[in-house]
């Protein structure tokens, strides 16, 4: 399949890229291309211009700074997978990365692209909701920080302006007794989620849940925060009764559609089961035995 014609630019700096985006409203940013190029081949996307970020140096960092894990726009999924820092301190992110697509796609795909694409089937949006992450948008007038709850605005829609680049993802560094986990049901490697659940939490000194974030993948027009489930668990001991209750809320509050991956009732039940498993795993990890 051959994409429609387009003009190609591969600027060497972010300001140059922004200038190109500003003067070409029909331009599209290209990062890993693992979502955009397939769309262009199907001609579901026909941008007049491609602004390829891959020639911009220094955007592939993964580092902790000032209480945040900061991930540059060109850090590939495979680099997250190979990072000891991510594996040891950010198990929810690590789980999620491993569940995205397949190893070859991950050599190219970026976390920033996964969020900017805002496909409800993408795995990272729910995880970023659970982390209460934020993203940095860089545009003509500099940087602005967008809280993740304000970032996703429906199917394939985000708070980014057409001349803004998602330049960095920021995840809060975990406090003591933190744990997280991502559970995804997929039909085979490389498939999008039938449903997925991301949980990040921390326990207080007495073992009660202090803070908790729960995000749901592919059971709505965008990644969903399971707010009632979070509220139900905050301040409680993570015992079976409360976990089951929270999972029941997630089952009720998600908004799945029937498709080839399953019917509505099946998906709701799946959300319930995955929510229980993800909370249990996150709690085990917070206790240091996950």
């Amino acid at each position, binding site marked *: 399949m051959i994409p429609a*014609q387009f003009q190609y630019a591969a600027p060497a700096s972010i300001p140059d890229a922004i200038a190109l985006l500003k003067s070409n409203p029909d331009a599209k940013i290209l990062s890993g*291309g693992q979502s955009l190029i*397939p769309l262009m*081949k199907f001609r579901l996307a026909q941008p007049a211009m491609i602004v390829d970020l891959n020639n911009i140096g220094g955007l592939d960092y993964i580092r902790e700074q000032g209480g945040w894990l900061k991930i540059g726009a060109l850090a590939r999924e495979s680099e997250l997978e190979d990072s000891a820092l991510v594996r040891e301190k950010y198990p929810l992110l690590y789980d999620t990365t491993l569940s995205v697509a*397949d190893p070859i796609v991950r050599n*190219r795909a970026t976390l920033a692209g996964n969020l900017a694409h805002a496909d409800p089937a993408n795995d990272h949006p729910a995880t970023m909701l659970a982390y209460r992450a934020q993203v940095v948008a860089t545009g003509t007038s500099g940087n602005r920080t967008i809280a993740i709850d304000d970032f996703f605005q429906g199917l394939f829609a985000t708070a980014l302006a057409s001349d803004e680049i998602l330049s960095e993802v920021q995840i809060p560094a975990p406090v003591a007794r933190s744990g997280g986990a991502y559970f995804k049901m997929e039909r085979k490697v*490389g498939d999008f989620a039938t449903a997925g659940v991301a949980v990040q939490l921390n326990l207080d000194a007495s073992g009660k849940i202090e803070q908790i974030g729960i995000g749901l993948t592919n059971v709505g027009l965008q990644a969903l925060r399971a707010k009632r489930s979070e509220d139900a668990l905050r301040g409680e001991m993570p015992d079976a009764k409360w976990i089951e209750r929270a999972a029941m809320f997630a089952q009720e509050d998600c908004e799945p559609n029937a498709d080839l991956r399953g019917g509505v009732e099946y998906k709701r039940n799946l959300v319930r089961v995955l929510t229980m498993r993800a909370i249990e795993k996150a709690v085990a990890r917070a206790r240091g035995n996950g």
Partner: protein
Amino acid sequence: MNVTININGKEYSDDVEPRLLLVHFIRENANLTGTHVGCDTTSCGACTVLVDGVPMKSCTMFAVQANGKSITTVEGLAQNGKLAPIQEGFHEKHGLQCGFCTPGMMLTSVAFLKKNPHPSEEEIRWAISGNLCRCTGYVNIVEAVQYAAEKMAEAQNG
């Protein structure tokens, strides 16, 4: 646009449209038809090549993005007429039937064995999970990769 891409140690220059996919540059401009197009939708891995040593699906990258980069295709595996260990492995262990997936399987495996020279069976299966084979059932492919790993370890230990 003018691009120059080094494929298997040889430079290929051409004037191409930005929309030309890397796999088509390799097959049609460089006439190296060992790289296959299977699904054309980023799913099967038949088109996998190494870009600066990293496996990539060449149906999901534009040729202009490979400008100035070094690519290895299946034609670049054998050296001086001698099969590479991974090729020998696929031959000895019957790691192919129709052979359509084989170039991609081998290139993925070559990069993987460089990172992980002594893999477990599970690690091999995980590493090739982006390459689909419709014929073999994977058992012999895994054995072929294990064969190559052993062969390379022997060569190293002299």
